[in-house]
């Protein structure tokens, strides 16, 4: 099957939904392609039931209006449960190959979002250790509590809504650990004052957690997880950290789930496949370079590719919505004045930049690793395997480590360990950009390739 659209939007989260809506309202036929079974992305993940729960769905009213508007728009065709396995430019057209056939366009908007950033530590591969996003998606998408005694840990503002959602649904959040310092906001208080709604949202979570007697413990982190006789998580070792995240002292806590996350990594795989210009920020985070109108840089002038949301720099749903709107209007050549939208984008971006300063990942996490700590979960490569390649074969860069150990060559294609390896090998920005490239975007069988007539 081959389908052509005037505009194709990849991703059905806040950025993609708004991009599709605005491009369609400007008169274009839009195809919206999404991997999920329901629109909303990770932020507005929902069960599909009429009743929803405000305690886990922030701004769901807004989301549900937007999703309804997109579904009701006769100019938008939604293709759900559609997994992309390749994206390329052929004869001045973008060709997107998926499990539901090929989609072709000359105007593409990428809104592929982000996923939790993970750091390795001893035992992080034990069942029961997961990302905060996993705990959140099971709660929001299915109403399932992932455990009874849960430790939420890592760094960043996302830990608060996750801990709040879990505790308000009956889980006992036995620890909420923020590795950054308690007063890290003080240095960026101006940004907080400029964004009172964000500040209030944070205060709201803290108050809700207080009623459940959950207090944030600052400068603490899970540095090891331990399995019980059944192979599942039984307890974690928690460390008090110094400002570089080196261990000062430790204690143990029993729990059945540890939800651990360190901010987000943008999903730049499709952007990289299409040859878009990418950038790396001080934290090692790769993003798509865009101009004033969210247009990405690439060499084929017959094609217009735009990007919006987390892909252009981690910034949250409000920023994603604004960027989606700008991208949708701009790709449609709308004459509508974008000044107000751009002003709002500027304010939200500077807030996002302040956040990355408040919640930096300090290098001390490397001191938590032991020789047998798994680094690559797919290929079961340990820290000692990597050190061996370094010492015995003089491997000095991430690519050589990958070739020698198979680190990052498993099914997830380095999405989980890629950034870690880059950090361990002190990769240059260009090496980080190169490692984001994946010619095959998700595993497919040869049968599926043959069906497309490509064999």
């Amino acid at each position, binding site marked *: 099957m081959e389908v052509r659209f005037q505009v194709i939007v990849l991703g059905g989260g806040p950025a993609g939904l708004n991009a599709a809506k605005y491009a369609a309202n400007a008169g274009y036929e839009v195809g919206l392609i999404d*991997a*999920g*079974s329901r629109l909303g992305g*990770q932020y507005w993940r929902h*069960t*599909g039931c009429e009743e929803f729960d405000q305690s886990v769905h922030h701004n769901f009213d807004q989301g549900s209006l937007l999703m309804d508007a997109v579904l009701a728009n006769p100019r938008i065709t939604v293709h759900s449960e559609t997994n992309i396995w390749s994206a390329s430019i052929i004869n001045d057209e973008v060709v997107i190959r998926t499990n539901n056939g090929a989609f072709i366009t000359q105007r593409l908007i990428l809104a592929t979002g982000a*996923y*939790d950033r*993970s750091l390795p530590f001893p035992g992080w*591969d*034990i*069942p*029961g*250790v*997961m*990302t905060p*996003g*996993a*705990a*959140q*998606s*099971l709660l929001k*998408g*299915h109403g*399932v509590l*992932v455990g009874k005694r849960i430790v939420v840990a890592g760094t960043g503002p996302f830990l608060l809504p996750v801990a709040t959602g879990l505790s308000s649904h009956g889980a006992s959040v036995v620890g909420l650990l923020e590795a950054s310092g308690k007063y890290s906001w003080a240095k960026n208080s101006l940004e907080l004052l400029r964004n009172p709604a964000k500040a209030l949202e944070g205060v709201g979570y803290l108050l809700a957690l207080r009623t459940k007697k959950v207090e944030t413990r600052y400068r603490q982190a899970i540095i090891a997880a331990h399995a019980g006789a059944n*192979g*599942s998580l039984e307890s974690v070792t928690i460390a008090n950290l110094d400002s570089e995240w080196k261990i000062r002292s430790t204690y143990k806590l029993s729990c059945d789930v540890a939800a651990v996350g360190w901010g987000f990594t943008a*999903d730049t795989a499709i952007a990289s496949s299409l040859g878009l210009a990418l950038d790396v920020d001080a934290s090692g985070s790769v993003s798509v370079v865009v101009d004033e109108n969210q247009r990405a840089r690439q060499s084929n002038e017959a094609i217009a590719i735009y990007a919006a949301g987390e892909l252009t720099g981690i910034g949250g749903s409000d920023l994603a919505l604004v960027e989606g709107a700008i991208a949708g209007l701009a790709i449609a050549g709308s004459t509508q004045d974008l000044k107000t939208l751009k002003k709002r984008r500027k304010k939200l971006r500077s807030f996002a930049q302040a956040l990355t300063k408040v919640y930096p990942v300090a290098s001390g996490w490397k001191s938590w690793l032991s020789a047998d700590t798994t680094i690559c*979960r*797919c290929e*079961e490569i340990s820290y000692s395997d990597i050190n061996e390649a370094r010492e015995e074969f003089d491997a000095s860069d991430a690519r050589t480590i990958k070739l020698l150990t198979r680190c990052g060559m*498993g*099914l*997830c294609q380095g*999405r*989980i360990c890629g950034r870690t390896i880059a950090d361990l090998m002190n990769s240059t920005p260009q090496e980080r950009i190169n490692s984001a490239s994946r010619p095959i975007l998700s*595993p497919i069988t040869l049968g599926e390739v043959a069906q497309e007539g490509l064999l």
Partner: protein
Amino acid sequence: MITFTFEGEPISVEPGTSVAAALLSHGERITRLTRINSAPRSIFCGIGVCFDCLVEVDGEPNQRSCITTVKEGMVVKVQHGS
């Protein structure tokens, strides 16, 4: 409600539930044993990125339980090896 089996045991859930959500809500955590160390694995990223929650569905290996929706009569098994 729709019913599927996991390791031969029937499990009933609401339509639209993912295999991962169905297993976790019935106390089943381990979805696969790894290829090299036979180590147990479970849901990790929850959104289809990490490929850790793989199961065998109707004889087809490498299915991500977190993004696979349960269907009536589906036969789900722990995946051995990757």
